[in-house]
């Protein structure tokens, strides 16, 4: 066992990378849940985004086009969910599961020709002086642009929910859809938009895994990150900054266990590999005492009768 091989600066930098897909998916789902919708299809949208982003990047040679394609793919898949739950009034739990099962199959199908390929690389931020600073440079100023996009989205969603009228309406719809309808707001429109945003975020989160974090394509490569993102929203009490904190916490645990695996700790690999899931359960248990942040209409179907 050689723990000295673990470099703390690189650890923090890679923690941020590991946290980004989680953060993107969780921020998207947070907005969806704040509008009163529970979309359990995050895993399916992420994996679809992962392959769509990967394939388009390989075909076009541009990782940026790939990221955009991933957002579109995630949003496209989430539109199916929006249709089922908002127009066909299907059960949200069942529809979300359907989305995940469908997305896993679809991504495997789409990804057949892309196994074992290396995607084009995304340039890292390289600011003279700043990026070369010791410790701070690698941690803060030399990441890929999507990582910063994740941080910007967190701030943006926070500001949107707290300060804008759109955010107020979104929260109102999630709190009490009957009242929002009575005041003349279109519950369905707000929710469909939120679902599409959540899908796009999940798609980008998935593409981040296949294009930057790993980077290659393997079937089922999201390995439950979409589900952890759902847990993260609960952990965050539906608050954006706490989602960031949670994502870094989980990213940290994951990076740490990978480093411990590499360092050859006496704990069997399998037990290290299951640690993120066990910790997720632990966190859910601790957080489940406080449900005060949960939107009151979460998971309930809305149909304007009379």
């Amino acid at each position, binding site marked *: 066992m050689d723990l000295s091989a673990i470099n703390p600066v690189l650890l923090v930098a890679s923690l941020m990378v590991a946290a980004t897909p989680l953060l993107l998916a969780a921020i998207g789902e947070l907005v969806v849940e704040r509008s009163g919708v529970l979309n359990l299809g995050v895993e399916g949208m992420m994996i679809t985004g992962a392959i769509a982003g990967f394939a388009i990047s390989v075909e076009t040679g541009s990782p940026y086009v790939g990221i955009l394609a991933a957002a579109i793919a995630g949003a496209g898949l989430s539109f199916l969910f929006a249709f089922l739950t908002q127009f066909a009034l299907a059960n949200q739990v069942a529809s979300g599961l359907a989305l995940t099962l469908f997305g896993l199959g679809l991504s495997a199908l789409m990804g057949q020709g892309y196994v074992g390929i290396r995607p084009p690389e995304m340039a890292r931020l390289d600011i003279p002086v700043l990026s070369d600073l010791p410790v701070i440079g690698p941690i803060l100023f030399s990441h890929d642009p999507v990582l910063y996009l994740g941080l910007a989205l967190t701030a943006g969603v926070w500001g949107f929910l707290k300060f804008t009228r759109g955010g107020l309406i979104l*929260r109102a719809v999630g*709190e009490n859809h009957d009242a929002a309808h009575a005041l003349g707001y279109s519950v369905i429109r707000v929710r469909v938009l939120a679902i599409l945003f959540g899908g796009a975020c999940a798609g980008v989160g998935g593409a981040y895994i296949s294009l930057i974090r790993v980077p290659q394509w393997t079937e089922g490569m999201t390995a439950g990150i979409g589900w952890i993102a759902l847990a993260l929203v609960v952990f965050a009490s539906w608050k954006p900054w706490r989602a960031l904190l949670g994502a870094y916490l989980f990213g940290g645990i994951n990076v740490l266990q990978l480093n411990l695996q590499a360092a050859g700790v006496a704990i069997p690999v399998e037990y290290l590999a299951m640690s993120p899931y066990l910790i997720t359960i632990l966190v859910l248990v601790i957080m489940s005492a406080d449900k005060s942040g949960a939107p*009151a209409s979460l998971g309930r179907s809305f149909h304007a009768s009379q």
Partner: protein
Amino acid sequence: MTATLLSIRGLTKAYPGVVANDSVSFDIQQGEVHALLGENGAGKSTLVKMIYGLVKPDSGTMTWRGAEFAPPEPRAARASGVAMVFQHFSLFDALNVAENVALGMENPPPMRDLAAQIRSVSENYGLPLDPDRIVGDLSAGERQRVEIIRCLLQDPKLLIMDEPTSVLTPQEVEILFRTLNKLKSEGTAILYISHKLEEIRTLCDHATILRLGKNVGTCIPSETTAREMAELMVGDTLHTPTRTATEDGAPVLRINDLSLSSANPFGTRLKNISFTVHAGEILGIGGVAGNGQDELLAALSGEATSDTNTITVNDAPVGHLGPNERRALGILAAPEERLGHAAAPDMSLTENALLTGALRQKLTKNGFVNWNATRAFAERIIKAFDVRTPGPDTAARALSGGNLQKFVIGREVLQNPKVLVVNQPTWGVDAAAAASIRQALLDLAATGAAIVVISQDLDELMEIADHFGALNEGRMSEIHPALGLTIDEIGLMMGGADETEGAAA
């Protein structure tokens, strides 16, 4: 000089199986308080929803200050100067007062300015309110203020109020009426929806009366007797409940210093409640909605359990028992919410008969359900209580409110309860069904059952209760004999003021 603000001509709206509004016409003048009077289900709500742009009429026209008026959505109606205070469903519990107000406005100012405006308007109209408070923590009366202020900030030309006093104590009603009169003097027209005749006689300049969706008459309330208006509203003479006088029997149900937290985060905590109900007695419990009625019913039905000795029936402690253990002892209940609480909407009447009848009617054996016996029980309820339905296989949600309520009450009454607790037994029920439900309760009391009727309809309680108490913020007032109570005394009890008097029951 007054001018016509809104003119309604031949407005018609049909829903599957029911014509909600059938060619309704009337005018609202500027600066008048116009009453829209009618029973539950007469079509009042549909009519105002059309004015507010929530529902589109099938035919007919509206004219606003001489121009055609057909708001496609509430936003358009608000832009024209229509504002509405809803009876239910328009506040957001988890948001604060200012945010709630902002949601009802077209172009709200920045939050800080809005908070200042709320403070000034609320003081101006005598409706004190803190813009930073979370709405879920407010009392029913305060919640209504939020809605009213939301409307006032938009400087409305027409203010629609849907049953505003159903959530207020008599004293709060007085404050509201002062506010409305002030608005009227400033030239705002008010469309006031109610089925309370005395209120309309004090407040309104004109009244339009709806029955079964039709305009059946217009009158000047101050020149019309309540009786005349009631006859227009109901259409025929009502059967008033009769009761045989009974001596108070032995004490049956005793509540001893019951305190209990609510299961609902925005619910009311019950505080130190004590009372006794005797055999053959009906105890009426009044109070403004949201002062602990649901919680009290849950505590009595066994949905919420408490310390063993806080509730006793015939001296047996039952506080710790669940609903079925209490049913075995003869304590039955009928909650307020018919669909989803008292009955399962998508299940058949037979299945709903099993819901509370399984134990006392011996409908199960070793856990296996005897569906034939259950069906027979459902048929017995339908027959005895004149429930209008194709048969016991009909889903509960397919029944009208009155018929389902008859079924729910009948289901409990037919099980020969020793103690029966009902919450809002005639809420949203047509007059004929309400009368038969009240008669059933009186008849049950005559057989020696102890009955607790929780209701927000004071007239109902005065009609059937022997004793009266009121809930206020989870506390119970002193219990007084119902006979001879004045409206002022009742108001004080509902407002929680009578505790200090120390008057003995």
